[in-house]
């Protein structure tokens, strides 16, 4: 036993990083640093290039398509709507956060790859799971293209959706 050393707290050991900086505040503060304009008060890591602005807009559209897919799936399957409502709320919250992180992003736009095909009750769950997986993959693929708070946000959303995917399996 380690009598000489006081044991570290598991909770403390796992809760350190964000005690130094609130990432969300960083995101809000750097949303203005768009189109390659670093800004003297901004963090270089949170500046975005024009290409990244376009990429962020695409990720917003991908998420909009997922939110639409939840609506389609729930309309086709009231049972699924009853059990998976919290997942849809999370998808909408993710969309709100993505829009906030995307410089100049409109409140809504034309979703890319919108799932137009109607789904029946029997296939609603599989349809929705497929849409969640595609969206998770898209955000995970885009994440390393960014730095700073936006990389963290995209990675977090991708992980959250992968968790949804597992739950819907």
């Amino acid at each position: 036993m380690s009598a000489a050393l006081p044991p570290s707290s598991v909770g403390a050991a796992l809760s350190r990083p964000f005690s130094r900086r609130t990432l969300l505040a960083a995101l809000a503060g750097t949303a203005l640093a768009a189109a390659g304009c670093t800004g003297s008060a901004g963090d270089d890591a949170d500046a975005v290039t024009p290409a990244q602005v376009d990429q962020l807009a695409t990720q917003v559209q991908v998420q909009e398509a997922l939110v639409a897919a939840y609506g389609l799936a729930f309309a086709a399957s009231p049972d699924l709507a009853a059990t998976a409502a919290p997942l849809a709320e999370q998808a909408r919250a993710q969309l709100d956060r993505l829009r906030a992180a995307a410089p100049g992003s409109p409140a809504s736009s034309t979703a890319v790859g919108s799932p137009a095909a109607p789904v029946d009750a029997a296939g609603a769950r599989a349809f929705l799971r497929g849409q969640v997986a595609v969206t998770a993959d898209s955000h995970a693929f885009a994440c390393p293209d960014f730095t700073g708070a936006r990389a963290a946000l995209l990675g977090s959303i991708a992980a959250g959706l992968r968790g949804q995917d597992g739950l819907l399996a």
Partner: protein
Amino acid sequence: MAEDTTGASPSSGSPATTAEDAALQEALAAAHTAVWGYGVVGAALPADAHDLVVAAERAHQDLRDQVAALLTSRSADPVAAEAAYTLPFPVLSATDAAALAVTLEDGTSATWTWVLDQATERSTRELGVAALTAAEVRAVGWRTQAGRAPVTSAFPGLPAG
């Protein structure tokens, strides 16, 4: 930038990756904690959960070794495991064990989200998103076993806002 308020004592070789290395040290410390913590989790769960615990523990061991090797390759001294840890709550039942596993995975997610925020190397961000995703997938299973609701998280690793 890399203000150190932790028990870890990161030392970095390259100024270009100083902040990233400090974040990786946090992730490494979390991996050490998770490896230790899953020993407690496994002891409190029935035998039929053994494979799940072993798989999770092995994932954290692999991540620990990968991060330690990365830091070493940068002439940074990887943080070591603590000699002992205190539990955040008593683990007296299978539900307690699942709750501890949730704590371990959520903590892991927080450190990897921070790595994503701090990383300058693309390869580190690729590692980060993979590690974060794996932790959240495991966390969903443990939240279910712990009776938590909701079992999924919209923003794993990010502070509640």
